[in-house]
């Protein structure tokens, strides 16, 4: 049903594009996208990183985490669509060649270095996005950390994308640079907090293993406060993932 709607919309768009009125509209849309698609891709990517951090934050209530997870999914999809638009339009404009999509630092254009960073960031984004979409396939097989390692390259991809955004195109205005820097610092703070809580939890978990026979009430309280034990977390995540991917494992 949805596919039918999309096909009908596509046919309508193609027909409208060949009229003169439609062509004028298309030109304005094109100008808008040429100017803003890169910006939107980066903003959506930043939102996806923040939402992803929120969604996997163990101290957050589960309802907010579910909401954050869907926000993470939505912004990731939007970012991907704006990325495709951005790359396609830049190729049509002649600012990058088709080869630049995959091979960085290849073209001899001015600012080739910054454009190459965009290539690298977009390649990483594709991997991050693909692992996110195929999350369900990673559950129950292999080590739990495989998926994490792949998906966590988002932390590397995002600053590269920011560097590309600030330098590969038009000169960034001051408020743009400031807001990018502010977003960057915010994410750094959240990521460091995440890392700290993870290391803290691992430290406490290890210590708890050493004292296994000691099941004092104080310790079990500490366990609850520190966070959800792994089994419950994975069970919840698995159930949630089954919802998204439609698998019935």
């Amino acid at each position: 049903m949805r596919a039918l709607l999309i096909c009908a919309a596509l046919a309508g768009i193609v027909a409208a594009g060949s009229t003169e009125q439609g062509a004028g509209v298309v030109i304005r849309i094109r100008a808008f996208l040429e100017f803003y698609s890169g910006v939107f891709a980066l903003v959506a990517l930043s939102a996806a990183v923040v939402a992803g951090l929120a969604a996997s934050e163990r101290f957050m209530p589960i309802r907010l985490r579910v909401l954050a997870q869907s926000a993470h999914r939505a912004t990731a999809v939007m970012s991907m669509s704006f990325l495709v638009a951005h790359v396609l339009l830049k190729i049509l404009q002649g600012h990058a060649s088709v080869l630049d999509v995959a091979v960085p630092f290849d073209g001899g254009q001015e600012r080739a270095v910054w454009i190459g960073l965009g290539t690298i960031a977009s390649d990483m984004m594709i991997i991050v996005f693909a692992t996110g979409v195929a999350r369900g396939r990673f559950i129950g097989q292999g080590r739990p950390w495989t998926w994490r390692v792949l998906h966590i390259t988002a932390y590397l991809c995002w600053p590269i994308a920011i560097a590309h955004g600030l330098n590969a195109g038009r000169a960034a205005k001051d408020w743009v640079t400031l807001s990018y820097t502010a977003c960057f610092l915010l994410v750094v703070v959240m990521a460091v907090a995440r890392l700290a809580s993870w290391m803290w939890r691992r430290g406490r978990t290890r210590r708890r293993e050493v004292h296994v026979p000691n099941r004092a009430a104080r310790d079990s309280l500490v366990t609850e406060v520190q966070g959800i034990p792994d089994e419950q977390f994975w069970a919840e995540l698995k159930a949630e993932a089954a919802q998204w991917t439609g698998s019935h494992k």
Partner: protein
Amino acid sequence: MPRSSPGHRSILPLANGVARIGGLVAVLVGLALCAIVEQEIIARVGPHRAVKAQVSSATPSGRRPHPTPKATRTDLAAPLGQVRTTVLRQRGASARAAFGVEDLPQPDVHLTRIDDAKGWAFGTAAIPPPPGVAAVPDPSVFVARRSGKTWQVAVAGVEDFVRLVRQAPTTVIPADERPILEQYGEAVSAKEGVATGMTLPWSAGQSWTMHSVAGNDALQFSGGDGRVLAPAPGRLYRFCTRSASQSMLLLIHADGLASEYYQMADVPDVKEGALVQEGDYLGHTGTARPCGGAAPASGPPTVDFTLFSGASPMPLEGTQIGGWTLHAAGDQVWADRSGLRVDAGNPLLNFGPVDASPSPAPRPPSATPSPRSHSATPSPRSPSARPSPRSTHSR
């Protein structure tokens, strides 16, 4: 199912709704891209109009001779030398100002037509910038008349030019080129704010990048499919024709306006003085420098574009072209249109032809962008665009 606290509504429907928003945006962007690609295909695959050289109608008995390569060197040396000195004398001041130097290289003179028997000649000359100076060569059109052993040369912009154009035989200046050359010779240098009535020199719907040429009133355009198209009807004249496919072009339009194109490659073999229609192919962006001036050919392929009112370059500030108003302050150049501002280095979109008739230079400058130039008439090939006033926003 993720466990929600008993008594609370499940968060899932809201979460699903949020996720669907992402999908919706992606579909919309995809549809927009389809429309853009469709238009791009139409623009590239659609019928290209080759430049039609105007067959000169009703020429009198003497056919207009092509540049006489048969003439002996001694015949040409006199006018060439005379032309060079005259061009340097009459155009030297403006060239020195444009290049910022004191010593000028010798001009590159091209005799378009010479009638040895009657002692008349017509041609073009370009003063190239000295090596190391990034500037566009200074173009000039001249008429020369032999009196005795010497040649009297008049460069466009000088009083004698119009008089000589009127007196020249049709073998040297055909009848249909005369009016446009007279207007060119009579036009006064423009103040700011000329509505040229031209469109941008590339296909409608494409965005090219605009750069300034240091210190000059010239622009560099690059990108798109690289095909430079005539922005208005006019007559085509060549400069620095060492190799025909790389010559510099000057298009003389009505009302004394002219546009110059440099660094192009693949210039088609059009007869000089031919009438070129708006949208006709002029050449491809490149890095050629046929006029000399030994600047290394580097960087992306571009076309250097300058506008002239009569013989003097039109200042960029306030010039309206393709519905955009150009501004220049110091080294910075930008274009704006109904509040949308595009800085140098950013994509400049060609919205299509404008319907404004060019305001001739001698009239006092139009200080405000005339509303005429912001509307567009539908034309068979190009899309019409109706920009609506937007609140000023910059990135």
